[in-house]
Structure formats: C-alpha cells, structure tokens
C-alpha cells in the first residue's frame, strides 16, 4: 500500500517536473523550433514520396488557372483565393505549380505556429501550446495537404487565425479585433465556398460569452454591431474591387512582366 502510494506520488511529482521543464522559456523555445522543423520535414518528405504526382483536383486547378490567365477573370468561374494567386503570378504550369505548392507549404507551417499560440492561449500554458503544435505538425491529413496545390492549407490557416482571434477577443474584447475577424472571415469565404461558416465564429463567441457571463450583454452587442457592419463593408468592397483590381491592375502588371 505504502509502495503504491509512493509510486503514485512519484508519478505526480514527475508530471510536475515535466510541466515545469516545458514551461521554461528556453526549453519551450527549443522544443518549438524542433517541432516546427519536424513538421516541415514531414511535409517535404511526404511530397518527395509522392514522386511529383499531380492529383486530379490539382490538375483541374492548374487548368483553370491557365484558362483564367489567358482569358481574364470574366471567363473564369468562381476564382477562389488559390486560383486568384495562381492566375496573378502565372508564367507557365511548372512555375505556377511550384509557386502554389510553396505558398501552401508556408501556410501549412504557419498553421503549426498558430496552433502553438492557440494551445497556449486556450489552456494558459506553454506546454499546452507545444502539445497542440505537435498534434498540428503530425496530423496525417495536414501533412498530406501540406505541399499540395489544394485550397485546404490556406483555408485551414485562415480558420486557425480566426479561432485565435476569437479566443483573444474572449480575453480582451476590442473593435479592432472584431474588424480583423471580419477580414479573416471574408478571406476564408474566398478560399473555400463553405468558408461562410467563419462569419458565425465571432457571433458564437459573443453568444457563449454572454451565456457564461464572460462579458456583459452591452459589450457583446457592440462587438456584434461592429462585426456585422464590418462584414457588410468588406464584402461590398471585395465584390466591387476584386474584378476591377484583377482586370485593370494585375493583368496589366503580369502582361508587362518578362517571362
């Protein structure tokens, strides 16, 4: 009995020690970089393993980018964020493929970093941030899409950033943060059509906050008003400016570039 108690107390003490160890700034910083490097290498290794194979959807995107680059936006259906980026910087399929994979790889790494901050903010501890970061680094499908030419990595990054903003809003509500949430929601909608769900994140945060008495109803209503008006404004600007911006500026810009 005594032996079992001493074993249990030893386990508990070890857990305390481990938590203290990973909570120290130096150790957590080193672990942070190790996990990030690990995540990056996993994504690159997975890409190398697939021997340059292009998935069916990736091929479709490349084809749509090539068509959009030739014909302009008015002939391209639903130019999502990724296709827009590809069209703007289009030279030839090989370069565009490399560019889009590079963008998505960077987005995938950024997601790992955001996961660290998410974990740290939600659970108030560096070790929790590191655990969340580890999960984000090794989740098989996040690795699989890490270097792909799909819309997922960009969307997931926007999703995670918005979630982080909601968590930060929960801690200290501010109008700037609410406006930033609008912008991220719009970017998410542009990245994937079902991204309309992002427009509900801040209202859900406000609703839960009022329900759990985190902040008063007045703060929540102010936040909601800022968010709704910001969303309306951003969507309007987006719808008005995107075609003009695309056709007048970017196409001109790209046609004058060498290559």
């Amino acid at each position, binding site marked *: 009995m005594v032996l079992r108690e001493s074993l*249990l107390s030893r386990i508990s003490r070890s857990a305390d020690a481990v*938590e203290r160890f990973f909570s120290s700034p130096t150790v957590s910083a080193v672990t942070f970089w190790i996990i990030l490097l690990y995540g990056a290498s996993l994504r690159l290794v997975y890409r190398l393993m697939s021997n340059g194979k292009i998935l069916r959807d990736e091929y479709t995107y490349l084809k749509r980018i090539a068509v959009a680059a030739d014909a302009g936006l008015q002939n391209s259906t639903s130019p999502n964020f990724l296709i827009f980026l590809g069209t703007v910087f289009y030279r030839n399929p090989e370069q565009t493929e490399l560019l889009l994979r590079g963008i998505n790889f960077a987005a995938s790494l950024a997601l790992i970093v955001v996961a660290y901050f998410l974990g740290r903010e939600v659970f108030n501890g560096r070790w929790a941030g590191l655990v969340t970061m580890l999960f984000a680094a090794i989740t098989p*499908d996040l690795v699989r899409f890490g270097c792909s030419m799909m819309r997922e990595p960009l969307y997931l990054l926007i999703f995670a950033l918005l979630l982080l903003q909601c968590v930060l809003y929960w801690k200290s509500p501010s109008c700037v943060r609410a406006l930033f949430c609008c912008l991220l929601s719009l970017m998410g909608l542009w990245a994937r059509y*079902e991204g309309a769900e992002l427009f509900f994140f801040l209202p859900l945060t406000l609703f839960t906050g009022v329900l759990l008495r985190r902040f008063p109803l007045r703060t929540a209503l102010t936040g909601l008003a800022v968010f709704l008006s910001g969303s309306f404004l951003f969507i309007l600007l987006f719808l008005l400016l995107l075609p003009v911006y695309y056709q007048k500026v970017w196409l001109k810009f790209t046609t004058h570039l060498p290559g």
Partner: protein
Amino acid sequence: MILLHGFFSTLWGPMGVSVVVGIVLMLFFVVWKGIRGWELPLLVLVIFLFCAVWRIPLINTERYTLPLVIPGILLMTALAFALLEFRKILPILPVPTVLLILVVALAVGMPFKALRPRKEKPHLTEITRIIEAERQTEDGQHILLLIFGNLGGVLQPDGIDIHNVQISKKESRARYYAQAVVRLAKTMSLWKMHTCYDRVFVVCMEDPDPVFQNDWAAVYGEPLKLRYEFLTAYRDRGYRLYEVPRTSAASAILRDPEVRKSFFREHNLLGNGDFSEVCAVTRQTPFVKKIADKGYSFFKEKEFRFPAQWEFNPDQGFRKHFWSFFRFGFQETEAKGNSCNMTSNSRVSLWHTGEPLPPGRYAALVFGRSSNDTIASFEVACRKENRERIAFRGYCLLPGREDSFDTVIPFEIPKDCTGQPMLSLYRGILSVSGVFVVPMETFERKEQDDNE
C-alpha cells in the same frame, strides 16, 4: 455517419477517439467541478460542434471535414490538460496523458516507414517499361491496368488508369482468383472496359491457380496472354503481367462511338430513349403536382413540353432546402436531336415510366454532355411483383471529367423483378441526349454471327 467517418479518417483513428474522449472528460469535469478554467475549451467545443453541423449538408469527401481538425486538436489537448489538471485527485492520470501523446506521435512513424532502405524491385521498372512502350506505339492509347493483390510498390507510368483489387488475407489464392473472374464476368466490366480502353493489362501476384486461366478462357473466350514474369525466391512469389486479348468481335465494333450508338439505337428496348416523342405537361400532371408539393415552382408557363415516358421522381432526395436549386430545360433540335438539360446541387432523378424491363442482363448507353464538376449516376429501380419496396442499383455515369460523355453501363435485373432505368443528378450540369438499353443476348448473338 459520413461526417463521423470523414472526421475519424481525416483526424486518424486514435486522434479522433482522443477528441471524443477529451470532449466527454471535459464535460464531466465541468459538471463535477464547475466551469471555472474551462470557459475557453468550452468555446472551442461550441465552434467545433457548429462546424460539424455546418458540414452535414456539404460533405461529399473526407476533405470537407478537414477544418474540424483545428478545434479537434485543441480538444485533444483538452484531454491531456484534463488528465494532468486532475492529477491531484488521481495521481495516475499523467500516465495515460503521456501514453496518449506517444500513441499520437507514433503516427509520425508511418510516413518514414516508406523511406526505409528497400531492395530493388525490378518488376516495377519492367512493368512500367512494357506499358510505356505499348502506350507509345499508338499515340493517345487509353490503357487500363488491373492489379490483383499488393504489387509491393508504386508504378510510375503516367496517363494510364490503374485499378487495384486487394486480396483479403482470409481468402485463399485459388478461391480469390476464381471469385475475381466471376465478379468481372458478372458485371461484364472487362467487356465494358474494352469499350473504354484500347488495351487492358492484368497484374497478378503469386501464381494464379490454373483454374483462373481456365475460368478466364471460359468466360472471355481466350486465355490471358503472358507478357512478363518475374519470380522471386521468397515463398514462390512472382509477379506476372498479362494482356487481356481483344477477342470479342462485338466489343471491337462497340469501340467506335458512332457504330456503338447506331447499334444501341437499332436494338433499343427502352421506349422514347432518344426523347423524340414529346408531350405537353400541365400543372395538373401528377409528377408536377408532387414536385410543387415539395416546395418547387416547376415552371411559370401554363404548359410545358416534356419527353414522353419520362418524368421526375420527387421521392428520391428531391427536397427543397435553402441552399438547393434545380433547373430543367428540354431542348428540341432537328439536327442533333432532343436533349434534357438539368442543373442541380441536390439529387434529382429522371425516371423512365414506360414498360418496365423484365429480368435479365442488359447494357445501357447514355450519352450527352456534362460540366466538369457533375456527379451523376445511372440507376435501375428494381421492384418485385406485388411489392411496394424498390431496390436501387446505381452505376457510375461519368467515369471521366470530359465535356461530353458516351458511357456503356452493363447491368442486371434479378429474377422475379422488373426494372426501370433512371438518371440521377447530384451536382452540376447534365445534358442527356439519349438513353438506350439493349439485352446482353444481342451482343452474344452478334458475336456468334461474327464468328460464324
């Protein structure tokens, strides 16, 4: 169920289970010890559940559940957090925490396994070389490679379709190969494949039982032609590449799209398969009334022209949701014939209401045009005599993503049943110019005549 399956496969089994356990444990502690300290994990849970519900009408692949991973990994951390947080009450709790993180981290080992040093596998290179050489003999040949079992690596030939049929460990080799032949013969997929592909190859692992070759010859007329053999010393394992000979005269004729179309048209059993007979439809027509009951305004005019012997079935997933839309247009042209044009983002079905088909084996030819993102199927509604219940048999209508399609679908109507063909559109734009159904005996008779 699709959502759950997608979530577990996207998040990888053990991680998915951890998320669920994390949610349960978190809620347990909230009920037990109060909400203090758990507000933010609860907010994450609310967003997670909202995203899951949001996705229910949207998902068609696992990719659509991928964003759930973000709140999902936070809920996994919540599990670790909960286990560690309550170690004062139960000091053993850190052990499952460490185990959880270790088990999840083991997932990392999986991609690295594929990079381990491996022996050279000459059969992979050689099979690739043979297929590449065959492909280059005639430019633009469509080649299909059927692989029975585990090839032990990845083949590199580009631009060919590969269909891999895995062998279950429970099945004996002889039984497996015999079943494979029967299965292929039953669905007549080889016959179908020869109308879609110029060359069909088969790769068999291990030595197929001699019965396999005999069965094959009995069904397809000629045994498989051995093109390459690689034997290893390991448990008599070998890799054999066979070519499926194109012996069937009928299948050779049916490769030409125009000949195929005229052949099907000539022997067609389906009334008004080319939509040439047209009748006027009013708002009082039963199927229009049914659709109107579902909440759709079918058309604004008083009268509408619709192909005779065809109608919409509103009972199959044809429900009005706030996100759904549906358009139907009937186009009459003298030169190209009539066509039914449909656009939808939820399921709509066009039923043939003429004389039902008796039991037997048939082949259907459906041709028309589609958009890149169309998902559609050819289905047969089978009904037993004096029974209300209908069993649906679905077949892929659009194997590729081409603008125009011309698909041959072999199907069977079981004994004691009658079948009615139907076309189902799940998403995209579909313009059908004709649906012809011919009994399989017609092909067999044609083949006999050709041989004689």
